[in-house]
């Protein structure tokens, strides 16, 4: 039984990369291999050229990982936790950066609070801060917004986008497809340990999802008398018609066919492509 099989993938420097897939697809295993938490039976992983096994010290200095599990050391306060994590990475006198990270993650008021006394969302923020103490050029966020309120989510994305703009490479796994759609430049979809899609977010949406066009006609028209059109009619209710199009180019043909029947379009609404459709089509099951 292999959690991963034949995954070959390169994330470019400075990219905001999404790793999507249903539970058990192998996302966390892949991250664990990169982070050195798990050893692959075969194959090789490297962070900015540093092999995660033979050059593990360099690889780990280049990498910041936000683990999925909400783990913490109950003996320490937030600031102590971040100082200790800095020390593990050989960063001393790190308080100015620790203060900045705490400020951006809205943790400053909790600096001297024991980890045990924090809410789940606050603990999640500390996990993010811990991954950033050594200013790693590559940051992996494994489900960073699982169980997190809207306010933190927005604050977190703002901060992560800023880090990305400043040149940090971001790899994100998430169950929230709209997040991946909003944040990621490129996406890999995993299913049962294999990559089933790997492309830019835009291409994935165009290739797999198509467009949905909702049309209101000026007359009630029997569906059997509609002309053959580019695009599939998915719903027809009185004068309201819903069509699935391969791309926006098909729209002209649809409108022309309707005109030939003497029908005019009173309203036209185009539904943008949705990553969830792509995801469902590729993984063949509900993602949430």
């Amino acid at each position, binding site marked *: 039984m292999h959690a991963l099989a034949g995954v070959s993938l390169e994330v470019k420097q400075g990219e905001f990369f999404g790793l999507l897939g249903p539970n058990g697809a192998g996302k966390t295993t892949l991250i*664990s291999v990169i*982070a*050195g*938490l*798990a*050893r692959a039976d075969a194959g090789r992983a490297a962070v900015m050229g540093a092999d995660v096994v033979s050059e*593990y*010290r*360099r690889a*780990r*200095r280049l*990498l910041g*990982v936000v*683990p999925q*599990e909400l*783990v*913490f*050391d*109950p*003996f*320490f306060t937030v600031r*102590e936790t971040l100082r*200790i*994590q*800095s*020390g*593990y*990475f*050989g*960063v*001393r006198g790190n308080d100015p950066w620790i203060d900045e990270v705490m400020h951006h993650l809205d943790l400053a008021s909790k600096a001297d609070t024991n980890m045990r006394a924090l809410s789940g969302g606050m603990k999640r923020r500390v996990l993010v801060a*811990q991954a950033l103490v050594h200013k790693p050029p590559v940051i992996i966020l494994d489900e960073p917004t699982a169980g997190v309120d809207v306010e933190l989510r927005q604050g977190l994305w703002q901060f992560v986008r800023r880090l990305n703009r400043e040149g940090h490479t971001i790899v994100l796994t998430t169950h929230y497809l709209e997040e991946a759609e909003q944040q990621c430049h490129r996406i890999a979809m995993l299913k049962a340990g294999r990559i089933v899609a790997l492309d830019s977010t835009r291409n994935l949406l165009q290739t797999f999802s198509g467009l949905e066009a909702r049309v209101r006609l000026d007359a009630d028209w029997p569906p059997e008398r509609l002309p053959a059109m580019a695009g599939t009619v998915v719903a027809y209710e009185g004068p309201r018609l819903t069509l699935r199009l391969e791309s926006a180019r098909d729209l002209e043909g649809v409108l022309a066919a309707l005109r030939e029947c003497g029908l005019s379009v009173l309203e036209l609404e185009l539904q943008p492509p949705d990553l969830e459709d792509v995801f469902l089509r590729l993984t063949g099951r509900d993602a949430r």
Partner: protein
Amino acid sequence: MSGFRTLFLKELLRFWKVSVQTIAAPVLTALLYLLVFAQALEGRVRVYEGVPYTEFLVPGLVMMSVLQNAFANSSSSLIQSKITGNVVFMLLAPITHLEFFAAYVAAAIVRGVVVGLGVALVAALFVPLRTEALAWALAFAVLGAALLGALGLLAGILSEKIDQLAAFQNFVIMPLTFLSGVFYSVHSLPPAWQAASHANPFFYLIDGFRYGFFGASDVAPALSLAVLAVSLALVSGVALALLRSGYKLRT
């Protein structure tokens, strides 16, 4: 080296924050042993020539405290980190297996020696203590704590649950320390039990430590030190190999 330094300081801070439990409680336990055994056995057990039983007992109790607390420190710290999952923060960091080992063992030595000192200082209020060869006592305390610290680390690596660790502590560490001659001189035992005691490595730790106080021991301190050094090398070798392979820490 920074990984070692931080991990070592973190381990010290960890037991210091709960010092009532990690320092005061074991000192009190040792003093209760001293009180009860001194009361029950003083004048009834023959130990070294010219050494009263209570005076003989104190170094044994000090060393027992050193050993048990060194073991408790590394083993409980690691198992707690494994169970709560926060061991991941150390595993994600560029800490070598040698730094990891050294930090846990060094912190175990500090905890063991601090508790031992506490027991000695409080005992000295009631019992006169002589120190014929203090350097030997110090060497045995530090190396003995290192051995138990390494053993604790090993137990912490191998255990997956608290009760597995507790079994190791109750069925291996406790009997070996209790039967190591803390409460008696093995010379007073029947020959078969004397031989059995000599097979217990902890006996050499207690005996060598006691030599530092009385200048007298059941076996030559150099032999005890050799047994201790070999045991330490063996246990450290196994612990380092497991840490290096990531056994039960990395999947």
